[in-house]
């Protein structure tokens, strides 16, 4: 395995883990995660349990997509938008959310590396 493959895997693993943990934790300590949702979602009338399951599903899609390593540009951009939105909508919690900015930068790196919709070399070689 060359350096490029290792770096690509670590980038994807970092984003995948960052999205895997909330997907699980949202069902252990739901209030911890509901607190980050914007008011327009919480006030939409959708039951909290539905919101949390949607949150989990969204996160798991990103996790699985990152692991597959295919068309990484798309989940990377989605991750950047999501992480940026979390920070912008919860600026008062910057002491905790500053790491989301770092993760968003990693996702940007992944998007640049895979643009335009290029599969990582590790997969190309096998195909």
């Amino acid at each position: 395995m060359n350096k490029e493959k290792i770096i690509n895997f670590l980038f994807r693993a970092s984003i995948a883990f960052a999205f895997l943990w909330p997907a699980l934790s949202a069902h252990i300590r739901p209030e911890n995660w509901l607190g980050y949702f914007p008011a327009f979602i919480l006030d939409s009338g959708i039951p909290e349990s539905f919101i949390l399951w949607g949150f989990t599903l969204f996160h798991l899609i990103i996790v699985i997509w990152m692991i597959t390593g295919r068309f990484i540009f798309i989940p990377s951009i989605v991750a950047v938008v999501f992480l940026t939105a979390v920070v912008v909508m919860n600026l008062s919690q910057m002491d905790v959310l500053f790491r989301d900015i770092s993760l968003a930068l990693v996702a940007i790196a992944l998007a640049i590396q895979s643009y335009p919709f290029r599969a990582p070399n590790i997969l190309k070689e096998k195909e």
Partner: protein
Amino acid sequence: MNKKVIWGIIIILVIVGAVLALAGSRATAPTTDEIEDEVNNQYATSTASTTPNNTDATEDIRMNGEIDIGGDIIEEIVIIYTDSGFSPKDVAINLGQTVIFRNESSRDFWPASNDHPIHNIDPEFDPKKRTPTGSDFSYKFPKVGTWGYHNHLRAGEGGTITVK
């Protein structure tokens, strides 16, 4: 698809399933109605024991931050939580004063110390549960300083308590 990728996805799905199953088997948390009943009972007891025949006591507290009951001075600062958030958001108090967070909104709230979500700055400043509409959570700040707080259910809402 690469076998390793498939195995990776299977392992993650198993982990997710196990954690969710574990979360589902936890002891059932009290419902909002149960919490509301409990808090209302506590509040009713507290009010009955400290408030003489003065139906405006709550208003007095809110407006003055100080009431005189049977010669004892009770100093309380009330922060009202409405659908618009906390009001006032930032409050300065003296050491020993109690801050009452009163829920006059149409939903639950959960005032607690920063930082969200672990409330590590002052772990005692945390009701550990939702505070339903019409209920209070009160806290006496034990130290001088500026203490940030937020609504655990809407982390963007919050303010500061400055204890002098």
